[in-house]
C-alpha cells in the first residue's frame, strides 16, 4: 500500500531535469481503491469516510467506508487517504489556457481571430498541450477545461479537453461543443476612451442588425443538408439550430441580458449566459428560460460606486437562491489555478461549500453536456478526480496531492515546482 503518493511525487520531482512539462500519464489503468477520504460528490452530498473503487478508468463504486471490507485481491493498489478530501476534477470553463501563453507577447496569442463574425474558427486547433501554464493550473485540481476563443461579435467555437495529453487530438473530450458570442451592448458607456454617445448608439444598432441577419440566413441555410455552395460559417452554425451546439453569450448589463434571451428565443437556441454581472436584476427571466449563468470571477470589484462592496462575492448565492443555475469560472488562462478560490469566495458570502463546489464541477459538466461521464464522484463515471490535503476551496488548506484522469494518475509537477526545487538546492534550504 502506498501510504503517501505525495512523497513519491516529490522524489520524482527532484530527479527530473528542469523546465520540462512532465510526460502525460501512460494508458495502462490500474484497479485502485481509495480508502477513507472525505468524498465531496459534487452534487451536494458528502461521504465522510468513503471507499472509492476505480477500474478501467471508471469509478466502479463509491460508498461509505465504515464497515466496508475490501477484497484486497480485486485491486492493484489500495491507497489510504483518511483525513484527506476527494473531489471530482474541477472544470475550468471559458478559458484561454493553451491558446495564450504570455499576455504581452503577441506571437503567443491564438484566441482572437480577426474580424467580427467567426463561427467557423475552432479553438481546439490552436490548443498547445505543451503550454508551460497548463501543468500549473492542473496541479491545483483543474483537470478539464473548455478552451474558448474571445473577441469580435462571434468569436468561434470552444472545445472541452482533458489537461493531460500529447497533442490536441488526444486532449479533446468534446469537440466544438459551442459557439461564443459577445452580445452587442446597447449600454452607453462613459469613459475617456469611449466613442461619442451617438456613435455608440449607431454602432450597437448596426451590430445587432448584422447579427440578426446572420442568424436568419444561417438558419435558412441549415434547413438544407446538401447545400451546393457551402458556407463555412453557416456550416459551423448548423448545430445551433438543432441545439447540438450551445450558444455562449457574453454580456453583463441587464438590458443586454434581456435582449440576448429574446434573441435566443427567436432562433430557438440553447443559450448559456457568460458574465452576467447584472444577472441578479433579471434572475426571474433567466430562471424562466432555463438559462444557466457562468459567473466570471467572484473576486471582482462592484461595477458601480453605489453597489454593495461585496456584491460580486454574493452574486452566486443571490442567483442560486433565486433559482438560477450558476457556474463559476476564473478569467484568462494562468489565473485558472485560482478557480477553487473563486468558488470559495462565494461560500464566505452565502453559499454552502458543497453548493460552491458544484459551481466548478457538476454545473459546468451539465452546461458542457459531459455530466454523464464527469462532474461528480458517482458509479460509472470517469475516474477523473483529485485528492487534497484539506479543504480545496480555501487557499490555506488547498493542496492537491493526487489527481486521476480516467483512472490514470497524473504527474502534478510543473515548471514552477521545478524552479522551486532548483533554488532550494542552491540555498540548501531543503
Amino acid at each position, binding site marked *: 500500500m502506498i501510504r503517501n503518493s505525495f512523497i513519491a511525487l516529490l522524489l520524482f520531482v527532484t530527479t527530473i531535469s528542469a523546465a520540462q512539462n512532465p510526460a502525460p500519464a501512460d494508458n495502462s489503468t490500474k484497479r485502485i481503491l481509495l480508502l477513507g477520504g472525505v468524498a465531496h460528490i459534487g452534487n451536494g452530498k458528502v461521504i465522510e469516510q468513503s471507499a472509492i473503487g476505480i477500474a478501467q478508468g471508471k469509478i466502479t463504486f463509491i460508498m461509505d467506508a465504515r464497515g466496508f471490507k475490501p477484497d484486497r485481491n480485486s485491486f492493484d493498489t489500495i491507497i489510504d487517504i483518511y483525513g484527506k478530501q476527494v473531489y471530482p476534477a474541477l472544470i475550468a470553463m471559458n478559458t484561454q489556457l493553451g491558446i495564450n501563453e504570455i499576455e504581452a507577447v503577441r506571437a503567443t496569442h491564438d484566441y482572437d481571430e480577426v474580424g467580427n463574425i467567426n463561427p467557423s474558427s475552432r479553438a481546439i486547433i490552436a490548443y498547445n498541450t505543451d503550454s508551460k501554464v497548463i501543468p500549473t493550473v492542473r496541479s491545483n485540481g483543474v483537470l478539464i477545461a473548455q478552451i474558448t476563443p474571445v473577441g469580435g461579435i462571434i468569436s468561434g467555437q470552444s472545445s472541452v479537453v482533458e489537461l493531460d495529453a500529447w497533442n490536441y487530438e488526444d486532449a479533446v473530450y468534446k469537440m466544438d461543443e459551442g459557439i461564443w458570442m459577445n452580445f452587442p451592448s446597447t*449600454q452607453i458607456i*462613459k469613459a475617456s476612451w469611449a466613442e461619442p454617445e451617438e456613435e455608440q448608439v449607431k454602432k450597437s444598432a448596426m451590430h445587432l442588425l448584422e447579427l440578426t441577419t446572420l442568424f436568419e440566413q444561417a438558419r435558412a441555410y441549415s434547413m438544407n443538408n446538401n447545400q451546393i455552395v457551402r458556407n463555412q460559417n453557416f456550416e459551423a452554425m448548423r448545430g445551433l439550430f438543432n441545439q447540438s451546439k450551445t450558444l455562449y453569450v457574453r454580456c453583463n448589463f441587464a438590458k443586454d441580458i434581456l435582449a440576448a434571451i429574446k434573441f435566443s428565443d427567436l432562433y430557438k437556441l440553447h443559450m448559456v449566459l457568460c458574465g452576467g454581472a447584472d444577472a441578479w436584476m433579471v434572475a426571474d427571466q433567466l430562471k424562466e428560460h432555463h438559462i444557466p449563468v457562468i459567473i466570471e470571477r467572484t473576486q471582482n*470589484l462592484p461595477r458601480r460606486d453605489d453597489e454593495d*462592496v461585496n456584491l460580486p462575492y454574493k452574486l452566486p448565492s443571490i442567483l442560486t437562491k433565486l433559482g438560477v443555475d450558476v457556474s463559476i469560472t476564473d478569467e484568462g*488562462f494562468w489565473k485558472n489555478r485560482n478557480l477553487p478560490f473563486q468558488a470559495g469566495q462565494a461560500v464566505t458570502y452565502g453559499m454552502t461549500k458543497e453548493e460552491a463546489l458544484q459551481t466548478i464541477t457538476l454545473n459546468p459538466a451539465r452546461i458542457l453536456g459531459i455530466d454523464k461521464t464527469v462532474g461528480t464522484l458517482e458509479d460509472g463515471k470517469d475516474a477523473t478526480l483529485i485528492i487534497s490535503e484539506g479543504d480545496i476551496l480555501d487557499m490555506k488548506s488547498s493542496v492537491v496531492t493526487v489527481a486521476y484522469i480516467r483512472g490514470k494518475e497524473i504527474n502534478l509537477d510543473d515548471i514552477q515546482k521545478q524552479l*522551486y526545487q532548483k533554488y532550494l538546492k542552491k540555498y540548501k534550504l531543503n
Partner: protein
Amino acid sequence: MKKILTFLFTIGWSVSQVLAQSTQPVQSLSDQRIITYAFTHAEIWQDEKTVLTDATLIIQKNKIVAVGNTLTIPADAIVYDLKGKRIIPSFIDIYSNYGQLEVKRNEKQRGPQYQTKTKGAYSWNQAIKPEYNAAFNFEIDDKKAIDYRNSGFGAVLTFQNDGIARGSAGFVLLGKKDEGAMLLKDKAAAMYSFNKGSSTQEYPSSLMGTIALLRQTYLDASWYRNVKDRDNNLSLSAWNDLQSLPQIFEVNNYRSLLRADKVGDEFGVQYILKGSGDEYQRLKEIKATNASLIIPVNFPDGYDVSNPFDAVNISLADLKTWEYAPYNLYWLDSANINYCITSSGCKDFKTFLKNVQRLNTIGLSTAKILKALTVTPAKLLKVDNQVGALHKDMQANFLICNGDVFTKDGSIIENWIAGERYIINADDTIDLRGVYELKTPEGKMFQMEIVGNKLQPDITVKIDTVKVKVDFTKDVLQYTFRLEPIKGKGYMRLSGQFNSEKREFAGQLQTNNGEWNTWSAKQIAVYMDKKDSASIKASNIAPSFADITYPLCGFGRKYIPVEHPILIKNITVWTNEKEGILKNTDVLIFKGKITKVGSIDENILHLPGLETIDGTNLHLTAGIIDEHSHIAAEGDVNEGTESISAEVRIGDVINSDDINIYRQLAGGVTTSHILHGSANAIGGQTALIKLRWGKNAEQMKFEGADGFIKFALGENVKQSNWGDMNRIRYPQTRMGVEQVYIDGFTRAREYQTAWNNYNKSGGKLQMPRKDLQLDALSEILNKKRFITCHSYQQGEINMLMHVADTFHFKVNTFTHILEGYKVADKMKAHGVGASTFSDWWAYKFEVMEAIPYNGKVLHDMGIVTAYNSDDAEMARRLNQEAAKAVKYGNVSEEEALKFVTLNPAILLHIDNRVGSIKEGKDADVVIWDNNPLSIYAKVQKTFVDGICYYDANEEMIMLQNLNVEKTRLMNKSLDEKNKGASMNRPSYKMEEFNHCNNKEQFPH
C-alpha cells in the same frame, strides 16, 4: 452754487478728455459728437450697497460725469426720463475668451514628441507660454459681444485658454468701437491651469507632472531673475513680468482647487481660483485657502431615469451633484468666501441668466449677485476705479432695467457701454397678463387668456369650448395677434394698441375671409401665477448643507468620524509580536492608540464614552498594509514621458474621494503606499496614506513617514510592449537602463557639489539652478529618500544593487521582484526587502519564470517579505494572498499574516507605529469573523487611529439609506423631465483604474 461748479468742472474735464483720447488721424471730416446724456428720476444702484432713488446720472462720451439726487442737468444734454426704471452697473465677466483666436488643437501625430515645437528663445516646454499676450490678439467679435451685452455684461477679462501658463489677459469693453477704445487694460491678469491644452509635447502627461512643471518654472524664473550668467529665455522673462498682476488659476474640481492653492502658497502667490462649482463638497478647506473664487453657474442637467435598467447606472453622487450644484454659491456666500460669477461654462447665455435668477430664488440676494458680477471682479482685477460701480469719472457702463434683473420678471432694457447705447429689450413695463373679453363688431364675445412669462406670454382664445393658441408678436408701438378660429379654415389677424390705464386693447382685424373690421379686448380678471406656486411645493424643498456627506457618495458620512475609547473583549489576537496568537484576550483602544493588551476589567477603567465590543469567536489583527497600490490618485499615476521623473509627487494628487478607499477598508486595509507607475526608470515620489475615509487628502497622509520613490526595471521601462511608435526614448534595452541610473546619480552628485561650493563661497559664486529632479535624487544619495523598485528579472535586480553600492546607498525594497528567489542571497547581502505577488505570472515575457514559492524562499532566506496588490481588486483580499504563502511553501500562518501587515510596515519604516498589536502602537486594527488567513474570513470592522471607518453592519444601513435617497432624487429628476427640462442620458461610467503602466492593458 455747488451745482454750477460741478457743471463747469464737468465741461472742462470733458473737453480735455476729448483731446486726449485717440491717436487716430482725422480722415475726411472730424464729425465729433460730444453729447451729454442725463438719465433722470431713476433708481440708481451705484454699487450693491448704495442705492439712490429718484436720482440722475449724467454721462459724456465714455465717462460718468455725475451721479446724484440733486444734479443740474446741462442745457445741451439729451434727457431720458427713467421714472420707474433702475440703473445698475454693467456686469463684468472675469473669465472669457471673447475676441480671441480659436485655439488650434493639433491632430494626433505619429509617435511621441519629446521636444517643444515652439520656435525661438522660449520655454523648453510647449505648455509654458507666459509670453503670450491676449491683448495683442484681441479682435472685436460683435456677434459674441451681442450675447454678452444682452445678458448685461459690459466688460470681460479675455485670454487664450490654452496651456499651463497661458500668458496675460486683457480687460476689454464689449462695445463696437475700435479695439483701441475697447481695450481698457493690457496685461490685466496672468492666467494658469493644470491643462496643457494644445501642447503636443509628451511632458507633462499627468496632473502631478503638471504640478512639478509649475513648481520648477517658479524656481527657474526666480533663479533667472537673480543670476547673470545664463542663457536668455523670453518665457521666464515674461513669467517674471507677470508676477505683479492678479494671478488667475483654472481648475476642474475642488481637489485641484486646493492643489493649485498649495502651489501658490509654496511660492508666495495667492491665486484667484476659477472653480468648477463643486466647492461646497469641502467648504471648510476651500475657505481656508483665503482665495477669491470665480464660480460658474453651469448647473448640470438631471438624468432621464425613466428606464430602471438605465437608472441603476446613475450614482447617488451624480444625483446629489445635480441637486446641490445651484446651492454652491449660496453656501460659499454663507461661509463668507469672496467670489465672482462667470458665464463661462454655460451652454448659452439664456442658461446663464436663468441660473443666476435661480440663485436669487435660492436665497442669494440681488445685492450679492450684483456684487459678484461687478465690484468683486473689478477689485480683483484692480480696475474698480474704472468699472463695476457708477461713480464720477468711471466708465459709463450701466444697464437700464425694468425691476430686478435677477428675478424672472425683471429685464434689461438698455446696456450702455463706454457711453454707447445698446438696446436690449423693448421697454416692457406693461404686464399684459390677465383674462380679457375679446369683442368683435358682430357682437361676438370670446375669452382671451394671457399667461406665462411676462416678456413672452402664452395667449389662448376660447372659441366655444376649445382653447385656440394665439400667435403673438409685438413691435415698438403695436401688438399683432394671429389665430385660426376653426382649424383649416384660415387665419384671423388682429392688430392693435394697448391702453395701460384702461387695461384694454383696440384695433383693426382682418378675418379669414379677408374682411376688415375693428376689435377690442378689455381685461376682466387679473393674472394668477398658478403653475409657479404649485411647482414651489413639489420640488423646492431646499437641500440642507448639513446633509452633505464626506465624501459626496453613497458611502460617505454626514460627519467625519472621531475617536472614542473602545474595549474589545475576549477576542483572538494575532499580535505579530513574540506573544504570537493570544486567545480570549482584551484590547483597549484609547486616544487612537492600542493602550493595553491582556485581561482588562472595564469597570475599573472609568473611561467616559467607552464602547465595548464582544470579540467572542472573532479575530483581531493589525490592519493590512499594501506596499504597492495605485488607488486614490488623480490624473494618472505615470508621468511616463521622460526616463527620469523624480520631480513628480503622488502626494500632490491624492484623491480622498476614491470609492476604492472604502472598498479596501472593507477588506481590512488601513495603510496604502500609493506609487507612481513603472513606465520609466525613475518614476515619482510616492505617498503613504492611511485610509481615513471622509477626511481630506492632506489628512490622509501618514504623518512623519519617510519619503519613498518609485523606480522601475525591465519591459515597461524600455517600452517593450508600447508598440512600434515608441522606439525613440532612451533606454530601449536593459543596457541603457543602467546608464540612465548612473547618469542620473552622477548629475545629482555634481549638483550637490555645486551647491556645497556655492554655500561655502559666501555669495562669490553664482547660485546654481535649483532642480527638483536632482533634489529628489540627492535625497536618495543622502539616505533621506528610499527606493521601491519594480523589478522582475534577476540580472537587473543585481544591476540596481550594484549601482546603489557604487553611489553608497541601499535599495530599500524591490517590488514585484518575481525572480527574487534567484538572487535571494545577493539581496540578503545588500539588505534589501521584497514586496511581491503571491502567484502572478505569464503576463509578460519577463515573468515566465515567476513562481508562487518566491515569497517562501525570500522569507526563508531572511529577507523581509511582503505581498502587495498593485490592483484595486486584489487589495480587498490581501489576507487571502498571504494565505497562499501557506499553500505554496508551508509558511506558518502567523508568519504569513505578517506578509501583509508587519513586513510591509518594516519595509515602509513605519513598524514603530503600525503592523502589530502592541501597546503604544496606532490602533489600526481589523476585526474578522474567522481565521484571517481563511478565505471564509469576513471583515466586521476596520479601525484606523482607533476610529471605525468600516463596519459591515453600518454598510447595510448605508445601502438602505442610499436607496431611499436615490429614489427621492430620481423622482425629483423625473419631475423636472415632465416640466420639459433638458436631461442627461444615463450612461455607464467605466471605472478607469490605475496600474503601473497605463499605456498597456497589462498591470504592473
